[in-house]
C-alpha cells in the first residue's frame, strides 16, 4: 500500500472538514417538512415565534449539534480502542459500553422507576464507565492487555449483563416498552442543556487522545520497541483508557447504542492515511460525525413522513462499506 505524503494527508483532512461542514448545513436545511432556505436563515439570525422557525431552532439545530458531538466521540473512541488493543475488530461496543449503559438504563427504568429519558443519561454514562473499566481490568495482565483476552472479557461481561437485562425486561413489560426506543440509538430530542454537562468530559478526552497518539503509534510496532523509544507504557495505556471510556460512554449516554460507527470510521481513516495514529485520530474525528449526520439525514427522507432513528441507519450505511473493505485484498492491515 502506498502511504500518502504529509501534504496529501493534510489536503484530505481539509476535504473531510469541508464534507462535514456541508453535512452540517444540510442537516439544518433538510427535514420532514419543507422549509425555505430563507426561513432557515431567518430562524438563526432573526428569531421570531413563527412555527417553522421553531422547527429549525428547537429540532434541527439541536440534533445537528448532538450528531456532531456524538459522531466525533464515537469515531475517536473507535480509533483509540483499535490502537490500544491492536485489534482491527475492536469496537467500543465489545468493551461492554453498550451492555453497561443499557443495563444501567434498564435498572433505572425497571427497578428505580425512572421514566424521564433525560434522566436515563447519567445512568447510561455511569453504567458505561463502570463496565468498561471492569472489562479492561478483567482483561489485563501484567504484560498489558492482550487483545483476545480483553475482547473475551468484554463478551463475558456483556453476556452476563445482557442476560440480567433481558430477565428484567421480559418480566416487566413497562421496562421492555420504554427500552425499545432507547435500544435503537437516536440523536433526536436530546435537549442541549442535558448534553452540555457531558462536553467537558469530551474535551478532556479529545486532548488526551491526541496526547497519546504518538506513544500509541510507537506501541503498534511492539511494546519492546516502544519502550526503547522512551514510551511510558503504563501511563499511555491508562490515559488512553480514560479517554476511550469517557468518549464511548458519553456518546452512548447521549444517543444510546449506535453500532458500527466506532468500528468502521477508523478503518476508513486507516485506509486513507496508513498506520499513523495522529492522522487516524484526526480523520476519525471528522469522518465520525460525517457518517452520523449523513445517516441521520438519510433517515429523515427515506421513510417520509416518518423517520428512522440514526442508530438503525448507521448499520445499513456502515455494513456495506465494512464488507467492501473486507473484500479488498489488503483489508486495512496495520
Amino acid at each position, binding site marked *: 500500500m502506498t502511504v500518502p505524503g504529509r501534504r496529501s494527508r493534510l489536503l484530505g483532512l481539509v476535504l473531510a472538514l469541508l464534507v462535514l461542514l456541508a453535512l452540517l448545513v444540510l442537516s439544518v436545511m433538510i427535514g420532514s417538512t419543507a422549509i425555505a432556505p430563507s426561513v432557515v436563515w431567518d430562524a438563526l439570525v432573526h428569531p421570531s415565534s413563527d412555527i417553522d422557525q421553531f422547527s429549525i431552532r428547537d429540532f434541527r439545530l439541536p440534533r445537528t449539534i448532538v450528531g456532531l458531538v456524538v459522531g466525533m466521540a464515537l469515531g475517536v473512541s473507535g480509533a483509540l480502542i483499535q490502537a490500544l488493543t491492536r485489534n482491527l*475488530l475492536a469496537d467500543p461496543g465489545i468493551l461492554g459500553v453498550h451492555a453497561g449503559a443499557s443495563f444501567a438504563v434498564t435498572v433505572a427504568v425497571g427497578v428505580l422507576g425512572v421514566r424521564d429519558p433525560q434522566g436515563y443519561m447519567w445512568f447510561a454514562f455511569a453504567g458505561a464507565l463502570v463496565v468498561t473499566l471492569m472489562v479492561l481490568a*478483567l*482483561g*489485563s*495482565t*501484567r*504484560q498489558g492487555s492482550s487483545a*483476545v*483476552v480483553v*475482547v*473475551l*472479557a468484554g*463478551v*463475558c*461481561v*456483556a*453476556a*452476563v449483563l*445482557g*442476560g*440480567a437485562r*433481558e*430477565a428484567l*425486561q*421480559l*418480566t416487566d*413489560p413497562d421496562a*421492555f*416498552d420504554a427500552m*425499545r*426506543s432507547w*435500544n*435503537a440509538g437516536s440523536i433526536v430530542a436530546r435537549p442541549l442543556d442535558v448534553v452540555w454537562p457531558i462536553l467537558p468530559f469530551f474535551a478532556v478526552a479529545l486532548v488526551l487522545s491526541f496526547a497519546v497518539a504518538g506513544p500509541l503509534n510507537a506501541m503498534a510496532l511492539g511494546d519492546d520497541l516502544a519502550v526503547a523509544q522512551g514510551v511510558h507504557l503504563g501511563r499511555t495505556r491508562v490515559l488512553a483508557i480514560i479517554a476511550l471510556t469517557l468518549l464511548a460512554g458519553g456518546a452512548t449516554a447521549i444517543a444510546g447504542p449506535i*453500532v*458500527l460507527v466506532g*468500528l468502521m470510521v477508523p478503518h476508513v481513516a486507516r485506509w486513507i492515511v496508513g498506520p499513523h495514529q495522529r492522522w487516524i485520530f484526526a480523520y476519525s474525528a471528522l469522518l465520525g460525525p460525517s457518517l452520523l449526520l449523513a445517516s441521520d439525514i438519510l433517515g429523515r427522507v427515506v421513510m417520509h413522513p416518518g423517520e*428512522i*432513528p440514526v*442508530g*438503525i*441507519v*448507521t*448499520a*445499513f450505511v*456502515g*455494513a*456495506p462499506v*465494512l*464488507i467492501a*473493505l*473486507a*473484500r479488498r485484498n489488503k*483489508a486495512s492491515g496495520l
Partner: protein
Amino acid sequence: MTTGAGVDFGRRVLTVRRRRFALRLEWRSVIVCAVLAVALACLAVLALMTGSYQLSPGQVISALTGGETGLVHDIVVEWRLPRVTAAVVFGAALGVSGAVFQSLLRNPLADPGLIGFAEGSYTGALIVILAVNGTYWQLVGGALLGGMATAVAVYVLAYRRGVQGFRLIIVGIGVSAMLHSLNTWMILKAELEQAMSAAAWNAGSLNGVSWDQVAIGGACIAVLLLLAARLGRPMRQMELGDDAAASQGVRVSATRLWLIVVGVALTATVTAASGPIAFISLVAPQIARRLARTAGITLAPAAFVGALLCLAADYLAQHVAPTTLPVGIITVMLGGGYLGWLLFIEARKRL
C-alpha cells in the same frame, strides 16, 4: 497454561514426550466425559422429580413406568421428560456446533452467531410473528430460512478465491449489525404483546416443548452429530494450518464448507425448535477444552458440557428464579460468568 519446561530436549525426545503427553490427555478426555455423563444423569433425575406441580418420587417413577394416567402421566411423560431430553440433546448439539466453528476459525470467540445466523433467524421469526402472525410451523420455517439465508449470504460475501477466517468474521459482523438494526426497528414498530412474545422467542426457551419437536429435532441432530464425528479428524488436521492439512491429503475447501454446513445446521435445528439458546456454543468448547486439558477443540467433551450446561440452566430457569424465565437468559449469565471467572483466574496465574 504452561506446557512444561522441557524446551531443551532434542527433537526426538520432545516428540516422544508429546506423544505420551497426548496419551494421558486422551484418558483424561474419557474420564471427563464419563464424569459429565454421570452428572448429567443425576441432574436429569432431579429435573424429572421437581416441578411446581407437587408429585412424589413414587408417582414420578410409576408415571415413567406407565403406572399413571391422566394429568400426572401428562406432566411427567409429556411435559417434563421431553423438556429434559430437549435440554440434553439441544445442549449437546450447541456444544458441538460451537466446537466446530471455533476449530474452523481458530478463534475462541467463534460461534455460528458470528456469521449472522442468530440475527438472521431472529429476523425470520420476527417477520412471521409480527407481519404474518403465522402458525408455529411457519415460525420454525421463518427462523430456519432467515438463519440459513444469512449464513449463505455471509459465506458468499466473504468468498474471494476461498474463504479466509478474518474476512468471514468481518463480513459476519457487518451483516449481523445490519440485521440487528432491522430487528430492533421491527421490535420498535410492533405492538407491545407481539414484540414481547418475539423477544421471548429470541431469548430461547424450552417451555412447552413437546415430543414432536424433540423427535424431529433429535433426528436431525443425531444425523448431524454422526457427520460431525466423521469430520472430526480432518478438522483437527486443519487446526494446524491449511497447508499442513492439505499435505496430509485433506481436501481443505470441501471440508471447510462441510464443517460450516454441519455447524450451522446444528444450531439451526435447535433454534428452530426452541429459539436461539445463546452462549452454549461459545462457552461449552472452551470449558470442555479446559476440563479435558486438550490443546485443541474436541467434540465429545464439548457435547457433554453443552448438554450439562443447557440442562442445568433450564433447571435454574424453572425453579430458582422468582418467575420462570427463558433458559437462554440463564445460559448467557451462567456461561458468561463462568468464562469470565476462568479468564480472571488465568490472568492472575500469569502474574
